């Protein structure tokens, strides 16, 4: 293994331009994937924020008994997927309306009777904010005799979920395409680097080096080139992120797990490309 490390580092020293270019190509290929990741992540964040606002409002008839409402609250809370059921009294609803609609404050103040109904606001847990779950919980709430109406912005939720599906499919296809292009570029870059050293591989075979002994330094070089390319891609993506954040609008940075996956992909692509390229050179000597 010591020889593999020494030879891998020597390979970088002997052909710094070629190995530098390989790493740069890997880096640029992964940079495109990184930019896509940045966009995909922020789209995901935006959709999740929209999803967080999905809730069911159960409007109660005036004069509903507090015991009945409490029982309903308890029963609705126990339904699968329900995160929280919050009772909003008529007074609270009016206060909220005054706060959110200050231009109508006078109208609300002059009212002799509060026209706003009490309600139950039902929030669902993540993963249950689907049309089916919403409909199921709404149907249960609608069945109580003291319930006036149940709304959850059905049309809006349908649009949101359609958008989410379209985004997921598009992201999947584009992500796979970008990853494939990156893999091809990385493969080509490392194939060129190995082709430049085919004589060395030939001589190693000639004098009796085992295939494993020949492979190890090249695989290590592939891993290092892939890792360095990954780091370069990370730096470039971060620069773009900061520029967008400072100059255009607020965006979120890619999660750590995605970054680790990106770096690991660089290393894996590097090793696989080197291994595939080596296979050809190890034959026929």
């Amino acid at each position: 293994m010591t020889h593999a490390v020494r030879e891998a580092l020597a390979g970088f020293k002997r052909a710094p331009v070629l190995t530098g270019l390989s790493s740069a190509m890997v880096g640029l290929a992964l940079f495109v994937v990184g930019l896509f990741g940045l966009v995909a992540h922020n789209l995901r964040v935006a959709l999740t924020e929209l999803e967080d606002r999905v809730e069911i409002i159960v409007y109660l008839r005036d004069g509903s008994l507090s015991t009945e409402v409490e029982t309903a609250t308890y029963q609705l809370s126990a339904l699968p997927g329900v995160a929280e059921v919050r009772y909003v009294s008529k007074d609270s609803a009016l206060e909220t309306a005054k706060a959110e609609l200050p231009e109508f404050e006078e109208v609300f103040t002059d009212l002799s009777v509060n026209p706003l109904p009490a309600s139950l606001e039902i929030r669902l847990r993540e993963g249950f904010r689907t049309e089916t779950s919403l409909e199921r919980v709404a149907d249960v709430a609608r069945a109580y005799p003291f319930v006036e109406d149940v709304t959850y912005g059905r049309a809006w939720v349908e649009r949101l979920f359609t958008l989410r599906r379209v985004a997921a499919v598009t992201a999947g296809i584009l992500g796979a395409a970008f990853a494939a292009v990156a893999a091809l570029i990385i493969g080509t870059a490392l194939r060129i680097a190995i082709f430049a050293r085919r004589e060395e591989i030939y001589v190693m075979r000639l004098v009796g080096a085992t295939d494993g002994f020949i492979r190890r330094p090249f695989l290590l070089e592939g891993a290092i080139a892939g890792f360095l390319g990954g780091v370069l891609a990370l730096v470039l993506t971060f620069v773009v992120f900061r520029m967008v954040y400072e100059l255009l609008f607020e965006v979120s940075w890619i999660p750590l797990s995605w970054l680790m996956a990106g770096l690991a992909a660089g290393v894996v692509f590097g090793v696989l490309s080197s291994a595939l390229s080596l296979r050809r050179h190890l034959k026929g000597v």
Partner: protein
Amino acid sequence: MIKLQNVTKEYPRHGAALKDVSFHIRKGDFAFITGHSGSGKSTTLRLIHLADRPSSGIVRVSGFSSERTPAREVWKVRRRVGMVFQDFRLLPGRTATENVAFALEVTGTPAHKIKARTQRLLSQVGLAAKAGSLIHELSGGEQQRVAIARALVNDPVVLLADEATGNLDDRATRGIMELFWEINALGMTVLMATHDLELHRIYPRARVLELAHGQLVYDSLAAPADPSPASASPSPHGTESVADAGRGP
């Protein structure tokens, strides 16, 4: 040491390069394989080096056989059988020492032994004074000496030379041939492919195997005994002899 038994090698696009060739070279022999371009000399050496496999027949070399040595174990053969080429196949940008040491490094020789063995081999081939020279600073003959040192550094028992003097002038050729004889005198089996008919006239003690169109057409060991030096020369037309197929190991 080297035995070919009814070896045929066919290439999909080029047809048969060797046709039913059999011969046996004993330990310590010095043999030339001669013939014109395309006669099958290099194919024979490639088969002996297990760089290629016969289409039919068996190649045996130093205890290994072509049919029982899987590709992943060819490295074992390479350590027993050194090989040099017309174009030297040295690594450019490295010194003579580095080229020879490389063969030791990649076969896992401990670092403390590499320096001493490299120096010994370079001295043996007469290049001790140029050990630190880069390959492109050496003449053709000197480069071939480095290649020979590299081929010998892992202590093989057979040395294969494929047109090893083909790129050299007369003086360098003589020097390399003398080196081969010295190596052979130490007990190593040497098999040299060459189209230079002069070589085996100059070295009549060597055995001569002549190939024509992929067939063995002459073997000096099987030729009728004749005390005259001319008898050591192969048939110019490659028609008068048969292979020494039946000799035991």
